[in-house]
């Protein structure tokens, strides 16, 4: 949480020769961060971030206490001027009735008093300035006192109109179903069973303690008598109630971080003094103090060597004790290396381990004053990391390769909308968000193609769009976390064969060509069944390529149908090789011959060429030379013993075995 306090206010509790900007930068380095320092007339305002564990320093007094230690460490004169402990007593002749009940022990401490003859007025200018600079609207002096005390001492407090309560009774209890409270701000809240409320003994709810008061008991311009009240409810209940009702007051922020009971008492006494001073109020009842906490001194022991371990520094006992003493930690026992310190009440919740004491010493000593060393180098053999590193390296190279071919890399959200998920549905049910932020981010992707297709719509004015993404798809598995499979997906608004060419060149680059095979058709409905293929690597499923299903393209509003492909990147990376063995080349020139056949809608290139290679060992490779309508021309490279052509044998084989119609055969050299 942030607090904003004026320099003049701070200096009521801190005597120092440090200037505001010096104080701001030193506080940031060793204590709470001063995020802004801004002039206010002749004064300055500090905007300070206080971490949730240090609610003790979320006040003028708390900052003054910290600043005194820090400034002194940096050579400034600095002295903390604590608030004088005053014990207010009831001395008047007539006593106004006040009873407080907390039978369920909901509050660890309660402090209450009635004050009479209050004069409602505007607060003096300095009070109004201090509050308004802190972001709190100045109201009447009565309300201002409660806010002033909270900021100055660090504990929220509340003021009721005694006469509006009528019964002189405050009962802390849990709310019941169907109870309501209209809070100070005029909003009506239906209460929950675990909310803690105060009623006036008649069952009428008058307050949400620690969070916000009720309208029916609030002070006004005609208020004559008040109850000044502090309670300390369980911080979890405060947080829960404040969140559920959406009442995020500064008081709630303090209370949910559990300020200590001694600070509460300090705030209470300071509040009474201020009511006397600013509203001429008189104590009109005995002071009620219900304290369920037991004062006990918390002790923590630490070895001097622990400081050395964490700070890489030989620090003397004297230095450690002087820093800790300044912060309120007293040395209680000392034996050889072990030091035992008592923890001040306002730090009891925060300080639990020796590491906490190390932090106190190290920050005051100054992190800047500690050395800067690289961690010692270590290495151990780790096959898991070797594989992972190799995958990351291949990822890098493949991305560069695709980018140089004109593809733009996208990072899309891992989640897509229900409707997009429906268009790109797979057989398995996707993982869904239980608390989505937007209807666009609900289903975890089982294919990245959904996002790429969406991006194609977004960028549809772009000619020749080429996109890729490498990310996880999320595949549910029983009784374990989903499989997060690294996946590479591509989309191109150019034709299918160009995209297939991109994949082929990627496979060539990784020396995979001989292991890759295609089979016409895919299992996924988002591919056009007429022009799509499943890709295998070493007979393992690698992925799919095809044209986007036309009806999906239409539903998305895509004018042209893009080509898409998706690969299991883990498998690809596993086989992908940057280098391969360099074989001795045959001195003999290959026989190069061309054969043109007519595609019969049955025998695919993949099968035909596989069969040829299986049957004729002399065949080294087969390339697609040309295609015209359904006539495909293959160029066959072969090495035969006597340099004799085997084209007629191949021709015969294809005609007889596959009943292919062969159009022409010829010596490829003549082309």
């Amino acid at each position, binding site marked *: 949480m942030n607090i904003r306090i004026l320099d003049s206010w701070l200096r009521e509790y801190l005597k120092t020769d440090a200037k505001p900007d010096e104080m701001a*930068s030193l506080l*940031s380095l060793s204590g709470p961060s001063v995020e802004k320092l801004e002039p206010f007339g002749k004064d300055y305002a500090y905007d300070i971030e206080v971490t949730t564990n240090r609610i003790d320093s979320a006040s003028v007094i708390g900052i003054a206490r910290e600043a005194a230690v820090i400034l002194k460490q940096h050579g400034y004169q600095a002295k903390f001027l604590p608030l004088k402990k005053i014990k207010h007593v009831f001395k008047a002749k007539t006593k106004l009735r006040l009873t407080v009940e907390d039978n369920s022990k909901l509050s660890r401490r309660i402090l209450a008093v009635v004050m009479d003859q209050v004069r409602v007025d505007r607060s003096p200018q300095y009070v109004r300035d201090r509050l308004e600079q802190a972001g709190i609207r100045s109201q009447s002096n009565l309300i201002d006192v409660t806010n002033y005390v909270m900021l100055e001492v660090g504990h929220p407090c509340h003021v009721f109109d005694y006469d509006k309560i009528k019964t002189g009774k405050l009962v802390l209890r849990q709310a019941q179903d169907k109870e309501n409270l209209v809070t100070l701000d005029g909003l009506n809240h239906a209460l929950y069973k675990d909310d803690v409320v105060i009623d006036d003994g008649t069952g009428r709810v008058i307050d949400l303690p620690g969070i916000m008061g009720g309208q029916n008991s609030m002070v006004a311009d005609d208020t004559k008598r008040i109850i000044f009240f502090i309670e300390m409810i369980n*911080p979890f209940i405060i947080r829960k109630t404040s969140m559920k009702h959406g009442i995020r007051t500064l008081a709630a922020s303090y209370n949910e971080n559990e300020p200590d009971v001694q600070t509460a008492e300090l705030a209470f006494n300071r509040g009474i003094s201020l009511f006397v001073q600013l509203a001429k109020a008189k104590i009109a009842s005995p002071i009620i103090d219900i304290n369920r906490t037991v004062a006990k001194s918390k002790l923590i022991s630490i070895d001097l060597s622990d400081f050395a*371990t964490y700070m890489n520094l030989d620090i003397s006992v004297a230095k450690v004790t002087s820093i800790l003493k300044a912060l309120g930690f007293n040395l209680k026992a000392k034996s050889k290396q072990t030091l035992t310190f008592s923890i001040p009440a306002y730090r009891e919740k925060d300080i639990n381990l020796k590491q906490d004491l190390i*932090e106190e010493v190290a920050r005051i000593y100054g992190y800047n004053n500690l050395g800067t060393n690289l*961690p010692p180098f270590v290495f151990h053999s780790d096959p898991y990391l070797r594989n992972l590193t190799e995958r990351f390296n291949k990822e890098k190279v493949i991305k560069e390769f695709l980018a140089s071919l004109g593809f*733009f*890399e*996208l990072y899309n959200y891992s989640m897509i909308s229900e409707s997009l998920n429906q268009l790109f549905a797979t057989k398995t049910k996707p993982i869904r968000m239980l608390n989505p932020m937007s209807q666009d981010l609900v289903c975890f992707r089982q294919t990245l193609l959904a996002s790429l297709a969406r991006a194609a719509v977004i960028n549809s004015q772009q000619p*020749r769009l080429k996109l890729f993404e490498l990310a996880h798809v999320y595949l549910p598995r029983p009784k374990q976390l989903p499989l997060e499979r690294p996946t590479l997906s591509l989309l191109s608004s150019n034709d299918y064969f160009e995209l297939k060419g991109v994949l082929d060149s990627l496979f060539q680059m990784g020396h995979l060509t001989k292991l890759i095979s295609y089979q016409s058709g895919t299992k996924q409905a988002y591919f056009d069944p007429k022009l799509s293929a499943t890709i295998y690597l070493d007979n393992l499923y690698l992925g799919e390529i095809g044209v986007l299903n036309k009806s999906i393209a239409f539903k998305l509003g895509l004018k042209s149908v893009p080509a898409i492909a998706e690969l299991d990147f883990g498998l690809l990376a596993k086989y992908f090789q940057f280098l391969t063995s360099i074989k001795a080349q045959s001195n003999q020139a290959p026989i190069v011959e061309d054969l043109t056949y007519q595609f019969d809608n049955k025998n695919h290139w993949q099968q035909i060429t596989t069969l040829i290679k299986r049957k004729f060992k002399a065949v080294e490779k087969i390339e697609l030379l040309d295609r015209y309508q359904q006539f495909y021309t293959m160029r066959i490279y072969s090495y035969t013993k006597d340099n004799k052509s085997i084209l007629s044998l191949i021709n015969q084989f294809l005609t007889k075995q596959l009943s292919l119609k062969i159009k022409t055969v010829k010596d490829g050299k003549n082309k």
Partner: protein
Amino acid sequence: MANQIIREIQQAKSLDDLEVLKTKFLGKKGYFNQQLQKLKSVSDPIQKKNLGLNINNQKQEVIRALNSQIQAVLRQKEPVTDPTLPGTKISIGAIHPITRTINEITEIFAKIGFYRVSYPEIEYEYFSFDSLNMPPSHPARDEFESFTVDGEASSTFGKMVLSPHTSSGQVREMWRMKGKPVRMINIARCFRRNWDVTHTPMFHQFEGLCIDRNINITHLKGAINHFAKEYFGYDVQIRLRPYHFQFTEPSFEIDTTCTICQGTQKTKSGKCRVCKSGWLELGGAGMVHPNVLKAGKINSQKYTGWAFGFGVERVYMMKHQLFDLRKLFSGQLDIYQ
């Protein structure tokens, strides 16, 4: 004859024509070789010698003529195009800024012996919270604004959540290393319920984790200082400010001097608008909390460690200005223009 050949060569207009003439006169089966063949039939050695010399002289003349004509043709053909015209357009794509930044981070830490790992994005709450000293009732968990998913809960590790930070990998890595020294960089997608100009519900973090005997605060400073200088530049300074995190003790926030005004708070156009008093927040760090080491089955009496978690987008935005973070994941190509 030679004169006639030379004239023919001098009339040639192109290199192709000259190539044909070269074959015709000087080739294997060309005019001069034929003439030399004929010499075989001459029996008088003196006549043979003279004839031979004569043929050779003529051949040299022809070669000279051919070469000078080649030069003449080349001179004629010299380009008259403007060499400053734009080149033929070749369309290239681009690598996403996040990939580039992740690669840079990985390499910077590899130099000092840190290896990159990858841990689940959909994670059990045990690893995202409980093991990091945040038991189920702890209010610090609320601050993470985390997402939950409909995956099957584990009886040991609790519900499935979207990992709100890369710290979820800390205890997993401690388990994997089984007591061996850890030098981890974990880079992953993270998810939180924030969506504005500087926040997206999905973002990336990189997490450093170093565990060994005698690891101390100076090693954390050293590693982060190394990163800051390698990534931002050698004029950048870092500072540690006390902070509070559940999973580290002591805890810090790390700042670097502002990369825009170099910490001076002044730019050419006036007061620096990017930084707070000359410093920019890099992210959180600290010494690993003993309870986290315990969850990682590491003896906190023997071993200490540090950890930090910084945003990939954050460091990218600190180094290169980016007016709207949401652009990075919008699917729009305008980030590449």
